[in-house]
């Protein structure tokens, strides 16, 4: 399920549209991950405040969205572009890759909430494909 020329065009355009609210998207996506899938809280035991919209959650949501924006820039070679981030997740953070599906789902929910008119089914399928490829590239260095 690799990205077609059309997919890449749609993805670049959509991420341009959402860029002004990227931190909001990230905050929503991460908040929902922690609330709707409580097992993900195990990765944040070092934070005191895990409530939706807390400062730490907002900031970290922003960090994640920056990583994703970087991936959009590197859309033609995600494995190469995400090498350093993959090493970070594989050797330092050691987040179980099953969780990438979870946060991807919540990123889609955040898009639907914040950009209901722009997040059409056509955009949805291209973004879903992109986030899946991203997760794969991020898992590259795990083993």
């Amino acid at each position, binding site marked *: 399920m690799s990205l077609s020329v059309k997919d890449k065009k749609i993805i670049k355009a959509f991420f341009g549209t959402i860029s002004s609210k990227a931190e909001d998207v990230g905050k929503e996506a991460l908040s929902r991950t922690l609330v*709707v899938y409580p097992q993900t809280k195990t990765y944040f035991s070092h934070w005191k405040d895990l409530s939706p919209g807390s400062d730490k959650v907002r900031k970290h949501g922003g960090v994640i969205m920056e990583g994703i924006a970087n991936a959009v820039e590197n859309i033609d070679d995600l494995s190469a572009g995400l090498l350093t981030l993959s090493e970070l997740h594989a050797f330092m953070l050691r987040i179980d890759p099953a969780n990438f599906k979870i946060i991807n789902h919540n990123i889609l929910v955040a898009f*639907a909430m914040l950009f209901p008119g722009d*997040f059409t*089914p056509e955009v949805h399928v291209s973004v*879903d494909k992109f986030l899946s490829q991203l997760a794969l590239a991020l898992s590259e260095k795990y083993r």
Partner: protein
Amino acid sequence: MVAWTEFERATIESIFSKMDYEDVGPAALSRCLVVYPWTQRYFAKFGNLYNAEAIQANPMVAAHGKTVLHGLDRAVKNMDNIKAIYAELSVLHSEKLHVDPDNFKLLADCLTIVVAARMGKDFTADVQAAFQKFLAVVVSSLGRQYH
């Protein structure tokens, strides 16, 4: 038996009482057929599913979307007994329709996205948790009678 909190019961009831079935049903089903095109295998008799525009304009898809959404009404009204309520529908999907039960989750995800788009900020994390829990129970019940 599933344990529901007062918040979860109230949330599910509120979402479905305010929902425009004519809008959400067709939107969820057509989104599913676009985002997960292999699900089109079950709708060979529906005519033109050639591209996203055709799917979203297809009247048979729209009609079936409403049917599916109204099918959730029984679960909303009998939240303490969803498994039993859906036993017959589960047999139907298995024996007659031959639907791979993995597809139920795909449709449930699309329904979540459509409801999120309609509700905007009101679709808080807690509301999402309740809604996804409800759909997970529905999905599990629909797959229960497969053998």
